[in-house]
């Protein structure tokens, strides 16, 4: 799909994707221990009458699906922005340790009693931001050492080192502090269970800001993705745009971690699928990633809940089972060796 004539096609595709997303979200709200029809779901949202089914929808399922959609969109767009800023097709919040950083900061804060329970969305978010930012910087710094600057291999390895280190620290904290382990056991692998409307509302402004910024600046991201030489020649200040990218990524990835824990692969897989579908123009990649990411995470959660009806299957595990084979395929067939 190239050329300006393709734009209406892409716009149409986006609209269709959006409708599919809404439909799947409604289905996801209806799915669960008791199957609720789409009609009931709509009634619950628009004509709430306090009955048990409606309560199930508004208190349990709607927040969960909303949280999944928001986290999915945030992670996918964060991945897209990272890939533009580093010029690296492997950049993503999970691979480069950013998720692990946010997760560790949250666990450490809870272990040190600096914040209340998981329900305190507002308190957690700032720790998640802080952890994500520090981890991101550390990975970038580590991966830039040595000749050649931040190549794919060095960044990925740096991300693996920092990520493993932070995960070990998180595990160590949880072994020593059993109380926090009880509270976050499922969350540490990425989970949407028990999300409340309060948490969703607390995190929403940050995700909305990040998404809005990314959408508004899409054109500039296209320029940025062409590489430092070309974008510099086109008058773009590398430092300014790197900083802006970092702020957006931290905002989005940190919020997603505060909401759903460290869910991997969304930020890596979605932008690539978008790129395969609509080409390398970030004016389209960003919105497609956002909606696609929301759709992906909501679907993954629905599958998890459908397969294991009474147990809470963490969405992070489902995402790994879906994302890892895709990542394998990507690594094997679509990357040029360096």
């Amino acid at each position, binding site marked *: 799909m190239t050329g300006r004539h393709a734009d209406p096609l892409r716009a149409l595709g986006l609209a269709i994707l959006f409708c599919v997303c809404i439909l799947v979200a409604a289905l996801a709200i209806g799915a669960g221990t008791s199957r609720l029809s789409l009609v009931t779901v709509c009634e619950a949202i628009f004509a709430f009458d306090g009955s048990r089914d409606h309560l199930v929808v508004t208190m349990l399922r709607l927040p969960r699906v909303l949280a999944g959609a928001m986290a999915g969109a945030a992670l996918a767009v964060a991945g897209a922005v990272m890939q533009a800023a580093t010029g690296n097709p492997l950049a993503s919040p999970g691979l480069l340790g950013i998720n692990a950083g946010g997760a560790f900061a949250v666990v450490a804060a809870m272990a040190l009693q600096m914040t209340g329970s998981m329900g305190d969305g507002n308190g957690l978010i700032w720790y998640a931001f802080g952890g994500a930012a520090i981890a991101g910087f550390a990975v970038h710094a*580590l991966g830039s050492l040595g*000749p050649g600057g931040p190549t794919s291999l*060095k960044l990925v390895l740096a991300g693996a080192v*920092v990520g493993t280190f932070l995960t070990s620290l998180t*595990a160590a904290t949880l072994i020593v502090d059993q109380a926090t382990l009880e509270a976050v056991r499922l969350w540490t*692998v990425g989970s949407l269970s028990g999300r409340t409307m309060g948490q969703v509302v607390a995190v929403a402004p940050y995700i909305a800001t990040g998404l809005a910024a990314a959408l508004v600046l899409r054109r500039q991201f296209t320029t940025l993705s062409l590489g430092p030489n070309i974008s510099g020649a086109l008058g773009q200040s590398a430092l300014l745009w790197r900083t802006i990218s970092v702020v957006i990524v931290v905002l989005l990835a940190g919020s997603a971690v505060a909401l759903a824990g460290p869910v991997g692969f969304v930020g890596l897989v979605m932008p690539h699928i978008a790129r395969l579908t609509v080409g390398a123009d970030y004016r389209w990649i960003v919105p497609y990633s956002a909606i696609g990411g929301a759709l992906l995470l909501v679907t993954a959660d629905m599958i998890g809940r459908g397969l294991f009806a009474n147990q809470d299957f963490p969405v*992070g595990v489902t995402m790994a089972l879906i994302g*890892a084979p895709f990542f394998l395929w990507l690594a*094997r067939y679509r990357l040029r060796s360096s």
Partner: protein
Amino acid sequence: MTSHRLILSAAIMSVPALLLASLALGDQTVSRADLESLVDGSATGQIRMIVLDLRLPRALMALTAGMALGIAGAIAQAVMRNPLAEPGILGINAGAALAGGLVIVSFKGAGAALLPVAGFAGATVMAAAVFALSWRNGTSSLRIVLIGIALGSLAGAGSSFLIAFADVADVQRLMIWLSGSVYAASWETLRLLAAWLVVPVVLACLAVRQLDLMRFGDDVAASLGQRVNLGRAFLILLCTAISGATVAACGLIGFIGLIAPHVARRMVGAGHARLIPASALVGGLLLMAADLIGRTVIAPAQLPAGIVTALIGAPFLGYLLWGRRHAAQ
């Protein structure tokens, strides 16, 4: 180079010193007189048991496992051509963790003996899968790393699944095993580990020339007569055999394979003929120290060595970053 030689001699002298410290220090006081009584045969049964049956095999196990991890780390960094590589990148740790987890959850009592075997098998299967999947007209470092991460994530998802849904007692045992510890070191396991390690370590020493050639990049190495892909496969196999044996004996201990070669490189330079033994030395010292700290700092509770090494990883990474901040870009 004199200062380097000094540091190297200091390191070599540290081994018996640390060993002695490991025998003397611990939860129960063992005085100098007690140690002397061991030598002249007049020690009580209690002292003999504490020093000879508990502390000595434990310290030697830490030394051996640390040496093995140091060597495996040096090989991994040479094969990946990157100073941030470690054996875990090949998915070894994740595969061993999953296999071990499956055993712990499925077999209750009999699992104890199966655990080392499962760990080793899991590590080997994973490394083989990573290599096989990254083979596409040969291999490349980047592809190996990425496939290692992908398969590692899959194995990690499997382990998370087990942790989330298994019995609480099983999960506790799994977490202890996963954190890596030489708590259960005995003369028998030490002998087994040594026997397993003899062949791969000797082969690693013989392969120093191959390792040196790998540093120059595929093209240069090929032109110098190295069969690059075969060489890489062989070295990965060696690295897996060595780390897999360590995992089988002590569970998962990370960061030694990352840190030891760096320190060794500072001491003796990058030539593998010196780097491999130096890496072994540093690895052994690090793990002995980690275990000593782990069993004395919150006595009588034991902090697994794997956690101590994870904790020293950060300051070390920071030190690495700081030391190389002026490195050529």
